[in-house]
């Protein structure tokens, strides 16, 4: 009973928080109205903000606004910057003051430009090429950025959540409790409807741990991207690249003799055909993880761009009709994105299971 109340209270707090952050957005809109920005200026601001939201950043800022005396106020917390530049440089990203000042670490000066760190002189001069990209040298950046921080947090959350669930199952075999009641059907679904039919009764147990981990990781991180925290990790192609590479490594490492035989010397086709099929099949093994990477990345990126554009329409239109229309549209699209978040996690898990299945499949040759 006690726990139920805590869960309800937490849900309430979360909703209040979401509403509060929307309210803050509104007050920002009012201020924009007060300072009488032209429509073109607002359009440019929205246009500049969308790619900014899609990028990784060196600090965890929830929102920012311009105060009455014209100062930029950022609400959030800085993250550590770790640079390798002929020696290790470690400092907090608050030193950059959101790109407004130059950070000095040891003998070197660094400046933030469009989310990337460049080495500069004491005055902080940046040289640009024709495409407005800075040409200064970049140190090797190993920082704990917003995306890295989120991945770590989700990893920790999943570790504690699932180890507690596992303990509860060890002690009490009859009925799942708490989170288990919510997640048990999903775990069973992945086992019985994804792993078993695609991998086969004989081998599926070896792959269950990876399939479950990847499903819950992608799902939780996609859902976090829809909260007002402003995180979006799976629209970073490096993250989806790593996930796809893990699937590729597991497929290749656990592949049986039959898998390689069907790639390099396809049985049952005439010999000249085998030479044509070999490069195609070999290329196919690389295209499979590549499409996994692109699918997840592009789906989440497209979803975020569309949602942000429609929300941006509120600030451009600034009348009751445009505002309410784009709010309604954004709400419907938000619900669709909830579906997409789960669907992409499902598709990734499903296709991974399919590839594992092809790796361990045993063919009976007639």
């Amino acid at each position: 009973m006690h726990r139920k109340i805590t869960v309800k209270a937490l849900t309430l707090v979360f909703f209040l928080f979401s509403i509060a952050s929307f309210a803050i957005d509104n007050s920002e809109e009012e201020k924009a109205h007060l300072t009488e920005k032209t429509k073109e200026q607002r359009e440019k601001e929205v246009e500049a903000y969308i790619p900014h939201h899609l990028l990784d950043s060196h600090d965890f800022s929830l929102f920012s606004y311009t105060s009455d005396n014209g100062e930029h106020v950022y609400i959030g917390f800085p993250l550590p910057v770790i640079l390798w530049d002929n020696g290790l440089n470690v400092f907090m990203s608050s030193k950059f003051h959101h790109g407004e000042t130059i950070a000095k670490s040891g003998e070197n000066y660094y400046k933030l430009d469009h989310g990337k760190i460049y080495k500069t002189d004491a005055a902080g001069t940046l040289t640009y090429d024709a495409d407005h990209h800075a040409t200064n040298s970049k140190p090797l950046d190993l920082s704990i950025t917003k995306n890295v921080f989120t991945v770590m947090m989700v990893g920790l959350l999943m570790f504690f959540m699932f180890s507690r669930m596992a303990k509860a199952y060890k002690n009490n075999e009859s009925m799942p409790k708490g989170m288990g009641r919510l997640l048990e059907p999903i775990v069973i679904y992945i086992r019985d409807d994804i792993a078993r039919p695609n991998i086969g009764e004989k081998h599926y147990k070896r792959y269950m741990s990876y399939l479950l981990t990847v499903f819950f990781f992608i799902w939780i991180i996609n859902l976090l991207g829809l909260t007002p925290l402003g995180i979006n990790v799976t629209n970073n192609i490096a993250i989806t690249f790593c996930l796809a590479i893990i699937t590729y490594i597991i497929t290749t490492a656990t592949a049986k003799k039959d898998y390689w035989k069907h790639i390099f010397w396809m049985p049952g086709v005439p010999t000249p055909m085998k030479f044509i099929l070999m490069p195609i099949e070999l290329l196919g093994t690389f295209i499979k993880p590549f499409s996994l990477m692109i699918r997840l990345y592009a789906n989440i990126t497209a979803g975020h761009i569309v949602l942000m554009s429609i929300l941006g329409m509120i600030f451009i239109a600034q009348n009751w009709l445009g505002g309410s229309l784009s709010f309604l549209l954004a709400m419907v699209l938000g619900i669709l994105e909830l579906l997409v978040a789960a669907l992409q996690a499902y598709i990734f898990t499903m296709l991974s299971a399919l590839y594992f299945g092809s790796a361990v499949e045993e063919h009976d040759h007639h």
Partner: protein
Amino acid sequence: MTGLNFIGAGLVVIGAGIGIGQIGGKAMEAIARQPEATGKIQTAMLIAAALIEGIGFAALFAV
């Protein structure tokens, strides 16, 4: 020529749309014929749609 890449992207999206539409339509026909196989048909439909969608995202690179 400028602007041709947008036409190309549009063509890709039209193609992907026709493909996914075909899959959805055929899956519905199949479910109507054999309602007991709904689960299996849905799974196969989703996989095929996801594969086509992957091609559809090629449009992103054209723009």
